[in-house]
């Protein structure tokens, strides 16, 4: 429940005000039947006069008005509280996650963080939006209504208790039976989505294998399961309505029956007055009883809903309570150099797992081009991820411009580095917004220059809108835009993590040529698969299973490094080398 620490002072004041308005709402709502009761008594005893009727009637209307106003105020307070709470909580979680390092993000997984920031927060809003008010109002209403009828005849109370028990039990039992099935339905629906996604994304493969029937059987089995579970839950929960109507109507009959018995039991001199009073009580009692039943029904619904909210709250708290493992240093150094040095670096993603990188040492001087090559899984990406400090090393040091990356203020460290990623990720928005991403100034000439070097020849309009997930661009197009974005940043270090594999040989060459010509003083690190891409690098680092097995120029490595030679020969023949 510590999630409520996130309520602001205003929220807390509003909660108190809300409790007051709820109390007044309940008070006036329960006051009304008293006047009907008086009216009924006086009518039945034959003592009523017009003045009294009008008097009581106006009081009744007054109560109705007061109760309405109170409940309007309650809704207003609840709206402010729940929306404000949701806004602040969402913002808190988002801010927290934005500051997570990779270690934390991997711990939760991106998908889970997204659901926690969206669905789970929406869930807590429901708790406050409806739950909070119900949690206050339902018990208050139930208790006060019970108090109101407690001095009435005990037989009425017995009848009421048994009907309330039957209804509440029905709700709880059916919910308990149906609830697990709802979870199953949720899972089956996810699975149905998956199969459909499979059918669409794999349409070529499925047709190539003539496997339409195979897929159909899978789909139909799932479809049938969904159908059966829906039908089951529908038939179980369908019991609630009829039981409720019989309960409420039956209770009315029972109250009248008991009332008639009570009336018959008065035979003395005050007979008429006593009997008339009974009718009055009976009318009031019927109204109160409805309030009691409603309160209990709402309460049981709220309590059934609570466990789900509790799960969401727990998930949100986990995000907020997570310690951030990577703390920014405070060195704000801006001297542009571009030196990178790895000193005896060991690294693993998880303390329990084997090292991904082992004993890595090398140095890149200002203006040099360093290439990293190796089989898939040899640790190339892990290595370059250490430079902008996405992760911390287990052992050794990564130095940029002679200073340990852990001593830098993260912002100024990352200002020194431009990164183009293996998976080109663009944002929803215009081309120019994407190219100038993260920069404060927008220089159209520089944008055009960056686009030109990255061979982005398919965009005519800098305001061209890129869709979410850049679905309106092809893989190669995305990659070129992501290169242009890295170039626009003009940092002292440029890192290309397997960025060139998606380009054809010629474009690859032209882009590298452009970079060489325009970024002479920039230190460039290229991770690549193709020998052609890296052949001319000042230094080539050959990685194999997380270790450096060769370091040097192309010609040297061909002579000395077996792994490099093997890679090279898999692509080119002896003469070409």
């Amino acid at each position: 429940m510590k999630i409520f620490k996130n309520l602001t002072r205003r929220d807390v004041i509003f909660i108190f005000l809300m409790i007051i308005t709820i109390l007044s709402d309940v008070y006036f709502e329960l006051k009304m039947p008293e006047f009907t009761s008086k009216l009924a008594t006086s009518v039945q005893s034959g003592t009523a006069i017009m003045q009294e009727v009008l008097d009581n009637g106006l009081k009744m209307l007054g109560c109705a008005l007061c109760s309405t106003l109170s409940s309007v105020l309650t809704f207003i307070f609840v709206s402010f509280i729940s929306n404000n709470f949701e806004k602040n909580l969402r913002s808190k979680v988002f801010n927290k996650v934005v500051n997570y390092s990779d270690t934390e993000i991997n711990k939760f997984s991106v998908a889970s963080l997204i659901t926690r920031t969206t669905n789970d927060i929406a869930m807590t809003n429901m708790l406050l939006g409806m739950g909070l008010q119900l949690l206050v109002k339902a018990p208050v209403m139930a208790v006060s209504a019970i108090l109101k009828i407690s001095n009435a005849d005990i037989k009425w109370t017995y009848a009421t208790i048994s009907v309330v028990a039957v209804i509440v039990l029905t709700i709880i039992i059916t919910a308990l039976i149906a609830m697990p099935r709802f979870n199953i339905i949720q899972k089956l629906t996810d699975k149905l989505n998956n199969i459909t996604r499979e059918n669409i994304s794999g349409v070529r493969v499925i047709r190539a294998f003539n496997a339409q029937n195979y897929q159909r059987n899978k789909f139909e089995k799932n479809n049938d399961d969904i159908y059966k579970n829906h039908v089951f839950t529908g038939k179980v929960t369908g019991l609630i309505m009829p039981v409720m109507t019989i309960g409420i109507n039956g209770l009315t009959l029972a109250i009248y029956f008991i009332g008639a018995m009570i009336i018959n039991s008065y035979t003395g001199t005050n007979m008429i007055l006593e009997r008339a009073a009974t009718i009055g009580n009976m009318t009031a009692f019927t109204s109160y009883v409805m309030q009691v039943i409603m309160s209990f029904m709402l309460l049981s619904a709220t309590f059934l809903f609570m466990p789900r909210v509790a799960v969401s709250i727990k998930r949100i708290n986990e995000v907020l309570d997570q310690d951030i493992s990577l703390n920014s240093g405070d060195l704000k150094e801006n001297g542009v150099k571009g030196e990178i040095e790895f000193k005896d670096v060991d690294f693993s993603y998880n303390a329990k797992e084997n090292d991904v990188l082992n004993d890595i040492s090398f140095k890149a001087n200002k203006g040099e081009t360093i290439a990293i090559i190796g089989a898939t899984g040899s640790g190339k990406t892990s290595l370059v991820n250490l430079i902008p400090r996405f992760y911390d090393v287990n052992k050794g040091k990564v130095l940029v411009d002679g200073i340990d990356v852990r001593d830098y203020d993260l912002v100024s460290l990352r200002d020194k580095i431009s990164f183009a990623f293996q998976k080109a990720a663009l944002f929803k928005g215009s081309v120019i917004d994407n190219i100038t991403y993260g920069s404060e100034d927008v220089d159209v000439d520089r944008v055009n220059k960056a686009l030109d070097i990255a061979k982005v020849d398919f965009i005519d309009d800098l305001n061209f809108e890129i869709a979410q997930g850049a679905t309106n661009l092809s893989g190669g197009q995305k990659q070129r835009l992501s290169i242009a974005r890295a170039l626009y940043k003009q940092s002292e270090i440029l890192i290309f993590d397997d960025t060139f594999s998606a380009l054809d040989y010629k474009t690859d060459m032209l882009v590298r040529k452009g970079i060489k010509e325009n970024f002479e003083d920039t230190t460039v690190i290229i991770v690549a698969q193709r020998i052609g891409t890296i052949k001319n690098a000042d230094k080539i680092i050959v990685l194999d299973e997380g270790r450096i097995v060769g370091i040097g120029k192309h010609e040297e490595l061909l002579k000395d490094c077996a792994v490099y030679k093997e890679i090279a020969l898999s692509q080119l023949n002896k003469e070409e080398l």
Partner: protein
Amino acid sequence: MPPMGRRLPNDPDAKMDVGSLIKLLRFVKPFIVPIIIIVLCSLLSTIPSIIGPSKISELMNIITAGVKNVEGVDMNAFMKVCIYLLSIYVIGALITYLQQWVSVDTSQGIGKLLRTTLNDKITKLPLKYFDSNTKGDIISRFTNDVDTISQTLSSTIATLLRSIVIFVGVIVMMFSVNVTLSLISIACSLVGFIMMFTLSKKARKYFYKRQTNLGEINGHIEEVFTNHHVVKSFNGEDEAIDIFNKKNEELYNNSLKANLIMGVSRPFMAFSGNLAYAAIFIIGVSMILSGSNNMNYGTIISFTMYARLFSQPLGNFAQSMTSILQASAAGKRVFEVLEESEMEEENNKQIVIDNCKGDVSFKDVRFGYSEDKEIIHGFTGSFKAGQKVAIVGPTGAGKTTIVNLLMRFYEINSGSISIDGKNIQDMKRENVRDLFDMILQDTWLFEGTIRENLVYNQENVSDEKLNEVCKAVGLRHFIKSLPKGYDTLLDDSLALSEGQKQQLTIARAMIKNSPLLILDEATSSVDTRTELIIQKAMDELTKGRTSFIIAHRLSTIKNADIIMVLNNGDIIETGNHEELLEKKGFYAELYNSQFEVVA
């Protein structure tokens, strides 16, 4: 408690689509009998609601009559009415449950049938359809739209009819008892209803805006979290937070407005109920006092019940209209899919190729994905059995298009493609596809065991065969290291590398073992050394098979028998690697780019 339905509020300006509704009604024809039962039940179940209050009034009068009577209440008369009422309540409840029972069967049956029909439709749609529609959109038609239809259709029809009957029934009952009180009850209910209606119409605008805002902010969250490396390395955190805050504030404002309006409208609806209650009491009692002979205490009680009943159908009408609007919109989206033109039926095509040799020839093939834009302009070429054919060229040159045509994923505009001299146009699509093994760059694996993925739709595949193939593609060791071997479930918990996925799809194709082979960038996500191992295995298998290979890593295709260089849909060069290099044309330039010294 049903799961929290998160149905999207309708666009406030949405119009009813009558055409889709008619189609929907036609679709549910097989369910006509249960629907009639539902309608009958829902009509019958109104009886207790309509005549209940008047019987209660009778009951009340029996009791009040006993006040001044020394004998007290006439218990015999009381019990008679009581038992009568109790029995219609019980029968009513049973009918309600029967209706519920049939409704669930029907609505879920409709949902199931819709999904089956949609799924079957998907297998008959040409590939073109999938190029122009996003996955997410098609999936949401399968789930959200079908759910909307199945949930609203049968229940809405029942509710609507029930509401009409109650509406009419209550008016008749009320007026037959007392005109003055009837007019008062109706007036009070109408005041509340009109207020609620105007307010909720206003609120709907904000609910719709809120939903749009929510979609935007969730999109932003997804983007920032997924691309967190980009955000971090470009120091984009502040910008991300700024955008977030702006969207969050907007969401807050619209959500607050929507809630506030709804917050005002609900209590006022309740107020109109209380107003009716008070008015009925005041006027009823004063009528009794003035000695009106058709007014008594029982009537007052029954009117308070009728007044409450009367506001129900009014609310239901509005709700039903919204539901029908939603169902018509969902129906439109579902029928859009169902009415898409299908691929041509091929039952009369008899030609089959047994013992395929593998001669393939293209004659003057012309094709375009859309009619106005031709991509392949008269492609001609013939390939002998057993040849290894490579297709290279820049992106957009039409490489994948050629193999798509070969497998009849698309139908050519003119010309012909034949295998062993037989026009593939004259064969059934599935018979053509049976001739090919195809491996694509996008590795497609499904959630299931490794065995299911490998054996995919083939019969009688022994473990020996699996072992042999997995060894050939270099997977044997990896699969052996898994505790459950071939029965390991492929899901997110088993983090396969792109290369391993590719090896699996290659193994799958090898198991199918067809006479012709297509590799569309099949090995581009595998590093070149692993590629070499796979290629060796492939070579073993491709011996004597005609194969078509697309790759932009030229090392992959250097040893092909024929290399076709494509640009803008035309073959601009053909020959083997050496011949093309000597030509010093497009291919030579492309190939030599990798040796160019960039300095």
